[in-house]
Structures are given as structure tokens and as C-alpha cells.
């Protein structure tokens, strides 16, 4: 009897898993002992971290996209038919088309989505770069910006935890390059009592912002934005004026997760080392979709996906568990337009970012191209 692997979601996590499993079980796929099916929402695969460069005109849009079919191993059965309901008891997934897929192993890799509409006035008053449309609008608005007060506003939860700092420092370099820095004031707001969730990164960011002349407001959880008055107010009682508002919007998980009662907010309760849905032995959860208290980031999805691949392959071919996820995360941090650093950590090793350098910035630029090897499961 053929074993069916069903992957819901065609982002980085789902794609790496699909391709990675294919590479390890070629013989079983040839014999028809195993099939791998992916349910995606789009025929296009986007390199999401590349959006960071769009507002600054530092990357061509076409570099962010590849046809999903070409990114996927040919042996993966790919449907552009979003999942509408997931029934983990009956082991069936119903798609928007009405088609029903059964499975032996399910991988939930449905990702996260921005929810600026969750905060009154935010969608109308702010710019963001977390989707292509938003990044384009921000690029066009920055082109017309002639100086004034910029607020970079960070909301929880959000993916890519270093992006807020990257945006802030890149904005400063961008405006300096345009000769507008003397006419500009940037204020960075952050939900907790320091400038970044990672304490060593916060310790680096504070003197860097002080030196750059960037202001900051901590313990700032956005309550509302008044686009007409151009003010943003926090739950903590602070109101800031702005001429140009950049937000890191709050995120939720996918609607299909909440609609299927698999997790509040679209985040699936997940064992943090097994990457199995709590209460399931045949449902893996990977990437932003989990509720694990860990960074929602591409690298998290990547390292989790490697673990899921090893375990799926081992379960299918040897009937045993291969290994646990150790919580590894690795993030590049762009510290301006020409320097960068990186940070890595896992469940037992705290982060310890090094000094920014041009070399690491170049490596990040190289990774922007190498990403496609990651998605193919080769890197």
C-alpha cells in the first residue's frame, strides 16, 4: 500500500521538505511505494527576505520570484488548490476546489500573514515591506519623501525578528545618501523594554542607534494610528507624531488553521523538538505555522525542515525516529547599506552576534541568490 505524504503550503518550509524527501527516497518514489503531494496557494515562489531591498531600489523584483513548479522536484505532485479544511482525525484535507486528499503523513507549512487591519488606522496610515504591494508603495513614497519625522513601529508577533533593525539602519543610510538625513528624525518603537528581543542584539543596537542619532521608544505596543492627524499611540499611553510611518505589522497564522480548529491565531500547538502537532504522531508542523516560542524566520523554517525530512524519511524507510530539532536559528542582520552581521542560537546556546563587517553584508547578498538552492533542498 502506497504511503502518502501531504504537504499543505508551498513556502520555504513546505518546498524544502518536499524536495528533501524526494532526494532521499528515489527508489520508493519510482516503485510507487510513496507519493508526495503539495497543496499550494500560488504558482509562484517568492524569496520573502528580498522584500527588504525593494523600498530602497536595491533589488530587481524579478529576482524574488521563480515558478513554484520549477523550484519543486518533478516527482512532487503539485496542486494550486488552497486547503480549506484540515481534519486530523479523519486524516483528510479538503481544498477550495472541493477535492479531498487523504494522507499517511501530513506536513503543515501554511506560514504566517500580516494583519495590519488588527490595529485601528494602521493599514491606512502606515507603510510596510512585508508583501510586494506594500514594499512597492513604500518605495514610491520614499522617492517623494523630502525629510521629516519617520517612525519605525514594531508589533508582536512578527516574522523575521531582525528586519525592524535592518529597515531602520538601511533607512538611515538611504536618506544619508539622498542628502536628507539632516532633515530627518527616525524614532524606532519596540514592544518590550529593550530594542530587540535578543538581549545581545539589543545591547549592540542601543549604542549603534545613539551614534546614528536614531531615537527609540521601548514598551510601545500599538493601540491605534490616526492617519489624518498623523499620530500613532501605544497601549502604554505614548503618542508620537509622524510624517512617514513604517510598520512591522502584527502577524497571524493561516486562516485554514483557525478554521480547522487547529490553533488560535493560526499557530498550531507543536512539540518543540519533535515538530509534531501536539496530540498527533502523523502531523508534522514546520516554519511559521508552529506555536513554538522561537523566531518566525526563514532560517528557522529551513533548520526545522531538515529535521522533518530526516524523520519522515526514517519513518518511511526504517520505521524509526531519526533525530530531534535543537532549536537552531541563524539570521543575517543588515546593519546598513554596506555592512552586516549574523546571529545564531539554539535551545541551549545563547546568541552572540559579532561585529558588523562588509564581508558579512556581501555574504548576505550572495545568499539572496543561494536561496534557490536552499529551496531545492540542496543547501
Amino acid at each position, binding site marked *: 500500500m502506497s504511503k502518502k505524504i501531504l504537504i499543505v503550503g508551498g513556502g520555504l518550509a513546505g518546498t524544502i521538505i518536499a524536495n528533501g524527501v524526494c532526494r532521499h527516497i528515489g527508489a520508493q518514489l519510482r516503485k510507487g511505494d510513496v507519493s508526495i503531494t503539495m497543496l499550494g496557494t500560488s504558482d509562484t515562489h517568492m524569496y520573502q527576505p528580498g522584500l527588504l531591498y525593494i523600498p530602497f531600489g536595491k533589488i530587481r523584483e524579478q529576482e524574488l520570484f521563480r515558478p513554484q513548479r520549477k523550484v519543486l522536484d518533478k516527482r512532487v505532485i503539485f496542486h494550486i488548490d488552497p486547503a480549506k479544511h484540515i481534519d486530523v482525525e479523519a486524516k483528510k484535507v479538503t481544498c477550495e476546489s472541493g477535492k479531498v486528499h487523504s494522507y499517511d503523513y501530513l506536513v503543515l507549512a501554511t506560514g504566517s500573514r500580516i494583519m495590519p487591519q*488588527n490595529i485601528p488606522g494602521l493599514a491606512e496610515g502606515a507603510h510596510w515591506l512585508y508583501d510586494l504591494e506594500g514594499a512597492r508603495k513604500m518605495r514610491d513614497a520614499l522617492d517623494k519623501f523630502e525629510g521629516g519625522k519617520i517612525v519605525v513601529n514594531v508589533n*508582536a*508577533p512578527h516574522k523575521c*525578528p531582525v528586519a525592524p533593525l535592518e529597515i531602520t539602519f538601511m533607512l538611515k543610510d538611504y536618506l544619508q545618501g539622498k542628502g536628507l538625513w539632516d532633515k530627518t528624525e527616525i524614532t524606532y518603537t519596540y*514592544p*518590550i*523594554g529593550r530594542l530587540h*528581543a*535578543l*538581549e545581545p542584539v539589543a545591547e549592540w543596537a542601543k549604542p549603534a542607534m545613539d551614534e546614528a542619532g536614531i531615537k527609540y521608544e521601548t*514598551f510601545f*505596543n500599538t493601540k491605534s494610528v490616526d492617519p489624518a492627524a498623523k499620530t500613532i499611540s501605544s*497601549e*502604554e*499611553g505614548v503618542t508620537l507624531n509622524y510624517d512617514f510611518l513604517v510598520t512591522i505589522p*502584527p502577524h497571524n497564522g493561516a486562516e485554514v488553521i483557525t478554521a480547522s480548529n487547529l490553533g*488560535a*491565531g493560526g499557530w498550531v500547538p507543536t512539540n*518543540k523538538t519533535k515538530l509534531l502537532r501536539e496530540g498527533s504522531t502523523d502531523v508534522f508542523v514546520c516554519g511559521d505555522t508552529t506555536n513554538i*516560542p*522561537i*523566531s518566525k524566520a526563514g532560517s528557522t523554517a529551513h533548520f526545522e525542515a531538515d529535521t522533518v525530512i530526516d524523520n519522515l524519511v526514517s519513518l518511511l524507510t526504517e520505521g524509526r525516529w531519526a533525530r530531534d530539532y535543537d*532549536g537552531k*536559528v541563524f539570521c543575517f542582520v543588515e546593519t546598513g547599506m554596506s555592512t552586516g552581521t549574523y546571529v545564531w*542560537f539554539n*535551545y*541551549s546556546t*545563547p*546568541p552572540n552576534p559579532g561585529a558588523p563587517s562588509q564581508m558579512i553584508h556581501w555574504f548576505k547578498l550572495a545568499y539572496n541568490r543561494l536561496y534557490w538552492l536552499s529551496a531545492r533542498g540542496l543547501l
Partner: protein
Amino acid sequence: MSERTTIDARGAFCPGPLMELIAALKLMQIGDEVEILSTDKGTANDVPEWTAKVGHETVAVTDKGDHWSVVVKKAK
């Protein structure tokens, strides 16, 4: 009926216990409680400081030996 959720943020460096708490409270109803478990000593101070600023209630802070437990009630 109010509910209690537990977030096990022990060993979690990023986004960390307070960010997890803030995100969790957004999904809860007024009167619900969330217990956050943390190995970060700062949590025992950071969470009560933030709840006092924003108007939620810190119900309990307990030293469990190898970690801290902080219980917060959503008040608004």
C-alpha cells in the same frame, strides 16, 4: 468562562518570554490568564513592569528553582 493558557518559553531566546506573552494576550479574552514559564531571570521583573504600564494584572510570580512562572490576567 475564563481560561488559562501556558507558554513554555524556557530556553527561548527570541522572541523571548515577554514578546510571547504580548502576542498571546492579543488572542485571549478579558479575564483569561496566561502562565509564562521562563529560564530568563529578567522575566520576573520585565513582565510585572510591562503589565503595570499597560493595565493588565500580574497574578503571581513564582521562583520554581530552575525557572520562573509568571501568571498574567488580561484586564482590558
